[in-house]
């Protein structure tokens, strides 16, 4: 394995909620940032780098400055990472790169969202708004339904193959008391019996939107050694952005994660089949299916057979999204992608309690934004 590029030394997570009332995004950012920095055993003054998401409701512009001021930080590196669901994973390597570049030593990566009864909608004039919306195609459900239908047509994959992914996520969520679907398992039959929202996509194959927040603290490998928690190293990262609208996707059945994961494996000197944990971005079942295939875990089109050949639970041979994934945990907007980072850190630290996997040395984390458009992959390793 190659030299570590940085280390994750602190994590924070807010319990997902379906609705908030009178709570600002800034307040939630403060709560979750505090959890992550204290988890690392650091003083707030140790934070000299700040990476934030673009969707802070209270301030459309100057987001890093607003958050730094709110938290009483004076970072020497601050930036917005705007990669949709890939933002969380995208923050981690950017933090390590900024540290390596000498810009800062310890970076807070934070994403949080409130979820008020009447959310404000931004005025939108992008090409999707002009060329897709007038034909009745609004929102991500339709875009991912188009990807799923294309996979079925090209490879003969079935509704039951996809339902396996949702059922596995719900099953794993039964060991996570914070998950929005804790106490609410759903087997394959229940997934297939849930209403079709946009064919061939069933309701239970779609993440539940929630309020929440996630944060991690990234520091240098050197400094990590002096901190209190077991170190989780960033061993490799990859990123690729190919398009925004589904109509402009270079392929409907393989995405930019293929290239991003290949780079992350090459940088870390690892292979997909060596991973002890697969922490794969799962906004929809089709996203996991394509990621398994793009990772090279099976041949294109064969994800269904692969799922049937493996046990995806924490004590199975291929633990996948042990926190329940976003399909089981809920999707706190952009912070949803960061749940995959936070769970990987928990597992690699040996802090996952009753859902702790056995051997926990290597984890693959993926992030995905827009319609299989923005992709980030990380290989994380236990010290």
């Amino acid at each position, binding site marked *: 394995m190659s030299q570590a590029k940085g280390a994750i030394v602190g994590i924070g997570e807010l319990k997902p909620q379906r609705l908030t009332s009178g709570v600002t995004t800034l307040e939630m950012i403060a709560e979750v940032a505090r959890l992550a920095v204290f988890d690392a055993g650091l003083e707030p003054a140790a934070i000299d780098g700040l990476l934030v998401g673009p969707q802070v409701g209270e301030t459309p512009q100057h987001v890093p400055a607003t958050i730094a001021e709110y938290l009483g930080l004076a970072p020497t590196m601050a930036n917005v990472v705007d990669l949709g669901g890939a933002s969380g994973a995208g923050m981690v390597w950017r933090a390590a790169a900024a540290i390596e570049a000498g810009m800062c030593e310890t970076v807070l990566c934070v994403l949080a969202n409130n979820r008020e009864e009447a959310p404000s909608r931004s005025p*939108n*004039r992008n*090409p999707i*708004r*002009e*060329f*897709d*919306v*007038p*034909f*009745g*195609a*609004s*929102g991500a*459900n*339709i875009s991912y*339904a*188009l*990807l799923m*239908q*294309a996979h079925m*047509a*090209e490879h003969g994959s079935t509704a039951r193959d996809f339902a396996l992914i949702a059922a596995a996520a719900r099953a794993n969520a039964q060991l996570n008391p914070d998950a929005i679907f804790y106490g609410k398992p759903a087997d394959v039959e229940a997934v297939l019996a849930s*209403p*079709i*929202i*946009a*064919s*061939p*996509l069933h309701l239970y194959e779609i993440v539940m939107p929630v309020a929440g927040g996630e944060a991690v603290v990234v520091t240098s490998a050197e400094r990590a050694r002096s901190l209190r928690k077991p170190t989780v190293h960033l061993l490799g990262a990859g990123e690729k952005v190919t398009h925004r*609208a*589904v*109509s*402009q996707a270079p392929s*409907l059945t393989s995405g930019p994660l293929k290239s991003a994961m290949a780079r992350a494996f090459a940088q870390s000197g690892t292979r997909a089949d060596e991973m002890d944990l697969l922490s794969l971005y799962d906004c929809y079942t089709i996203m996991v299916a394509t990621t398994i295939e793009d990772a090279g875990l099976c041949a294109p089109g064969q994800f269904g057979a692969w799922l049937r050949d493996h046990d995806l639970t924490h004590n199975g041979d291929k633990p996948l999204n042990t926190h329940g994934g976003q399909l089981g945990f809920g999707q706190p907007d952009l912070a949803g992608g960061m749940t995959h980072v936070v769970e990987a850190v928990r597992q690699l630290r040996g802090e996952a309690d009753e859902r702790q996997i056995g051997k926990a040395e290597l984890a693959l984390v993926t992030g995905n934004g827009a319609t299989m458009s923005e992709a980030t992959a990380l290989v994380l390793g236990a010290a």
Partner: protein
Amino acid sequence: MSVDLNALKTPGPTITALTQPFWDAAAQGQLKIQHCEDCGRPVFYPRPICPHCWSKRLVWKEASGKGRLKSFSQIRKPGHPSWLPAAPYVVGLVALAEGPTMLSFILPGARPPHVGDALLLAPTAIGGRVLPAFKPVETATEEK
């Protein structure tokens, strides 16, 4: 789908000076897309520069109106409430004969849509304006 699509209060396109020729043609029942005079490639959606070679020598040409269905979805729960009366309805990704792919509204055919179906431009009034929708080309056997 028995609803009058033209009576829907659906959001229309956010037209700019650059994209006006596309929507003017659409209103006339035509599909026009840009072509690059330098690299020769077709361009959709409209842009100020060719996304392949960054040339500014883009010209509008009428498309054949022929396409192939790359994927589709029957929408039962629309993402925008104005579409609720029309549900279920079908949208699809149309690979135009010229090369680019566009998303469009797919009119019902004699049988349910399938990936790979041949399509033809079918200008349709939706939400108070004529949009470049598509319809399946019925095969000879099905027309008997």
